């Protein structure tokens, strides 16, 4: 039986550097992993971004700490469907993804008058 509620630990999650994400995502894809989604949470100095993948229902995660207001490479070149959740995280947490094929400029959900990222307390202003 596979756990449907997986507590994040070192067995199922690899902590990686921002510049490793695209390479490691490509390796997971080559191994047959499906992209499930990404999650994010605000830490003191950074945003924790989690990438969730699964194969035969088994979950595997990549965890990256992205300094607030900084950039990370988009994995949409590996998993094209990632563009949507990357846009969501950009809008809600102010994480910039380099090379998103379809960039909503922080307006996937909200309109132009919303100037601050709602889920990130430092309230990064939109570019």
């Amino acid at each position: 039986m596979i756990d449907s509620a997986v507590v994040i630990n070192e067995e199922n999650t690899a902590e990686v550097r921002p510049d490793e994400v695209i390479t490691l995502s490509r390796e997971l894809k080559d191994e047959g992993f499906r992209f499930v989604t990404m999650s994010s949470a605000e830490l003191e100095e950074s945003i924790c971004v989690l990438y969730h993948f699964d194969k035969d229902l088994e979950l595997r995660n990549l965890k990256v700490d992205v300094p607030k207001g900084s950039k990370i490479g988009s994995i949409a070149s590996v998993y094209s469907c990632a563009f949507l959740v990357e846009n969501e995280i950009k809008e809600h947490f102010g994480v910039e993804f380099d090379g998103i094929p379809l960039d909503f400029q922080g307006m996937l959900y909200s309109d132009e008058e919303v100037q601050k990222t709602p889920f990130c307390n430092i309230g990064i202003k939109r570019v």
Partner: protein
Amino acid sequence: MAKTVLPFGPQHPVLPEPLHLTLTIEDEIVKEAIPKLGYVHRGLEKLAEIRDHNQMIYIVERVCGICSCLHALCYCQGIESLMGLEVPSRAKYLRTIWSEMHRIHSHLLWLGLFADAFGFESLFMQFWRIRERVMDLQEETAGNRVILSVNQVGGVRRDISAESAQWILDTLKTVEKETLQLKSTILDDYTVKLRTVGKGVLTKEKAYELGAAGPTLRASGIAQDMRQTGYAAYSELDFAPVVETDGDCYARTTVRFNEIFQAIDLIRQAFSKLPEGELAVKPKGLPTGEVVSRVEQPRGECLYYIRGAGKKFLERVRIRTPTFANIPPLLDMLPGCDLADVPVLILTIDPCISCTER
């Protein structure tokens, strides 16, 4: 012919919920589709910062009126994992029964809307008439028709008596018989086939690569269903994912239709094995750590990421709903289709914008 840009939604006669697509068409053929969300975005996840982890159960239930019970189940399951709670066996079976009731009424609701999209208003009423029976079961067992509020951290808040169980089984017999009577009307009808067979094909490879979920994934030949992980009481029940291989609108309709019968069978199995015992264990302490919890909602895999630091309030609750996962596959299906087929294609992913814009 010059390209035309056409806004589709958020208000459209065929859409039960406000999805907005910007379609680029050429000679009535869709060339590109760009989604725009946010019409009903509520930011419910943010409430985790000001509501404690028990209050969040009632908030996540309100993410969606169709699969409220499963949102709460997914959330509670995550909190239980963080707190190391073992849910009593009876509670696991009861969670399964309510989850499958949700699947039946959700699929009947969708089939009704789908029939209505073709102009089959009478068939729409027939599906919804059957659905009302399931809504009555939910009201009888949970006290509510839509937001069931039966889940709590550590188990369930309500029991189902032997008399109610018998009434449920009798009612499901009628639901099964009446749904079966409509099978040929929806699946063998010339017009329905004309509008669905070979339309909006999502290949097996694309479905997997684009992260499709639920019936949209299984209609493309991939036997993946989160219930296979065995959460709640599914590990003790006998079932296999309902799969079709054509990946078109007709295949997605067939999967949902057959999943109604599968859900009825699962409820029967669950009642036949329903153990006696406690309904819940009392949680101690506060959730600490990070967890990813997944369940199979009627529309597909739902994922909750929960992060707690042993405080009254959680640090983060993040919800990835199945419709969110099915938007990239939808964007892949639309280019090349006739403008007239767009409403049918959109409906066959069973979009729930209330979920997506939680």
